[in-house]
């Protein structure tokens, strides 16, 4: 009987995982279209400042570093959870959250700075597209943080089991996905301005 219910659990897990991949595909289309829009608008400065006038390479480096390391820490959390070390997984998740939150703080600081300088999203088509692309990514990171916090609470409150593990592995996927999107932002939005 236990074996049978395990099999059922496993099937449900694989369905959830498949569904999650489909969601990621849909989200990837969403990001591609925002990227495409950004490409279309990248020269529409309307006399306003461009990326070269605004971007700070140090800020960018720290942001990128934080996010990349967080991808590593969440992988460690997942690894620990697979090995049954729930407490260790929770700790790595906390580290991930701190890194992710750091990324967001830097991002929000940068964007506020632009707005204060008069380079807000309402300044030009280029800046609208920039804010929207970066902002959409940031919102996804925020959602990921809320998800991670929920999981941390769950690891401490509830019995660790296959469901929790499945949630964590999906969060890990999501987080890596956001990393990839960020690499896109990094290389298509920021990098050309420094070259």
């Amino acid at each position, binding site marked *: 009987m236990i074996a049978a219910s395990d099999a059922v659990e496993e099937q449900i897990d694989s369905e959830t995982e498949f569904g999650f991949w489909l969601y990621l*595909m*849909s989200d990837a289309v969403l990001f591609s*279209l925002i990227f495409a829009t950004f490409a279309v608008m990248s020269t529409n400065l309307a006399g306003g400042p461009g990326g070269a006038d605004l971007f700070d390479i140090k800020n960018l480096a720290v942001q990128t570093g934080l996010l990349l390391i967080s991808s590593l820490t969440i992988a460690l959390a997942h690894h620990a959870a697979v090995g049954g070390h729930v407490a260790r997984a929770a700790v790595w998740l906390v580290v991930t959250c701190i890194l992710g939150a750091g990324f967001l703080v830097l991002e929000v600081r940068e964007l506020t700075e632009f707005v204060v300088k008069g380079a807000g999203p309402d300044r030009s*088509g280029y800046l609208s597209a920039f804010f929207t692309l970066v902002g959409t990514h940031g919102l996804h990171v925020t959602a990921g943080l809320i998800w991670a916090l929920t999981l941390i609470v769950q690891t401490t409150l509830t019995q660790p089991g296959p469901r929790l593990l499945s949630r964590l592995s999906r969060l890990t996927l999501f987080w890596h996905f956001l990393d990839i999107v960020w690499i896109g932002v990094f290389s298509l939005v920021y990098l050309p301005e420094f070259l």
Partner: protein
Amino acid sequence: MTEHVSLLLGRLGPDALPFYSWVAFSGALVTLAGGVGFLAVVTWLGQWRALWTGWLTSVDHKRIGIMYIVLALVMLVRGFVDAIMMRLQQALSYNSDGYLPPEHFEQIFSSHGTIMIFFMAMPFMTGLLNYIIPLQIGARDVAFPVLNAISFWLTAAGAGLMLISLVIGRFSTAGWTGYPPYSGVEFTPGVGVDYWIWSIMVSGVGTTMTGINFVVTILRKRAPGMLLMRMPMFTWTGLCSSILIIFAFPALTVATGMLALDRTLGMHFFTNDAGGNMMNYMNLFWIWGHPEVYILILPAFGIFSEVVATFSSKRLFGYPSLVYATAVIAILSFTVWLHHFFTMGASANVNAVFGIATMVIAVPTGVKVFDWLFTMFRGRIRFEPPMLYTIGFMCLFVIGGMSGVLLAIPPINYSTHNTTFLVAHFHNMVIPGVLFGYLAGYMYWFPKAFGFHLDPTWGARSFWFWLIGFLLAFMPLYLLGLMGMPRRMETYGNAEWQPLLIVAFIGACLILMGIVCLVIQLWVSIKYRRALRDTTGDPWDGRTLEWSMPSPPPEWNFDAVPVVTTRDAFHEAKYSGTPMKSVPQPGTLHVPRNSVVGPCMGFGGFCVGFGAVWFIWWLALAGLAVAVGALIGRAFVQNTEREVAPDLGAKTT
């Protein structure tokens, strides 16, 4: 903007009430009376608890499917009222103002298009997918039942926003496509366009999740032996449609989201000035918009395939070619979006490529028509209402397809663009193609869902009214388009147009009779349900698995999940006399418990939309908090299932 925005009520003030035109005011009254009347009847009958536990919180795909279809039928009536009002206006407004002020006329064509596409056709399709597909593939439910409920409630929230725009504030005047720069805040301030944006954005999120849900359901939850090439055609088309949803809907979210950012935060995606690019909107919108028409019509093709095989008492002709045609159409549908704006000024070569791609779609579509014809050839055809609608479709659809090929030729398109020729063309696709398909499906599967037939006489009457009404209402529009009549005209000064517009109005009146017949049919059938009872579970001599179970099916669908050995396995088993094998069943089954997450998400989504429309930001945030809170709360629910013990001995429920 000089609008006054208060912290508590945003820009909502007393002038939001519809006192600007007596027609709008009556519409608001009817909407309110409908809502209040519904609440009153439920209270009077003391059915709140039954409604809540039996329906609103249910996660059973069959219940959710029925709720979708009820929503669709209600919205069909509302969308049709808009339509006949436009027809009356144009029949009257030669050299005169008619009875509708211009701004109100514009609201009406915008709401008609939006309702018919998003809140009539989409829910109707989703409802049919919900009810039928798990039964056709031998599954006990969809892959994610709670997500399914959430999808439904987000759709309902969008429809709610749409309906309330009639009572509080105004709807968009920018058409169902909301093209900027007109739909931008500079030319159209006020809440109308925002209502349009948020109602389709909220429901669009739900639709995306439906797409995901059904791809997983169809690919992962089929009964043993149900190979892909053994799936019923309706399931195949549902699969392709769901895949299209997953890939196409993000484009709608992006287009409307950016428009919302332009309007609300003063951004410049699509504005005239400051580096906006309005052509980008046309691209984004139609990258979604063209696949959308296939999202709607492919499942209708699936229904026609099922109906034609069943009522010709023959195996579906050319099943593999139908499958491949469906898949090819699905793929090609992403390559033609530019035909919606040939006149935008892309180069002749670009137009030629997209024109040819568009015409290529006619090939697989033609294959399908021939498959259906060959299925009927030498069949023993029974002219029940679903079959009538199917035959009507086959006759009318050919006209629409040919006018579509004409429109796909760029030079011809230049002279028919934005005329009523186009209006006639797409109604020729969505009424005989989409709506007839869904109505056929509704009449075909109704006995499965409720255990009694719909009255066939009234069904046939409804069909004839729809058929003749459609011809009278839309054939004149082809002529008018060739005579140069632009679409969306509130008034006109060309005397030659009026007689044809009067004919079109008469056609709309006949369609009204068709709708009345549908209502009477439902009424009469409920009244005489004993006489119309289906005791067999297989009233039409069906071929697919849903007919192997009692009508209505038990909550867990299959007492024992069948093992499928061939296409149309149920039909085979019925006639060969060897019953289908089934998977050995444990004594008890698990079905998902009810969940309040769906209604909570719907409520939250509604508040987010309403708050964003009126700039009541606390409400939008509260709505978001409810939605997110519901999701987080759901993650802590442990007991998501309850046990049922099907009585394997007894056949009935």
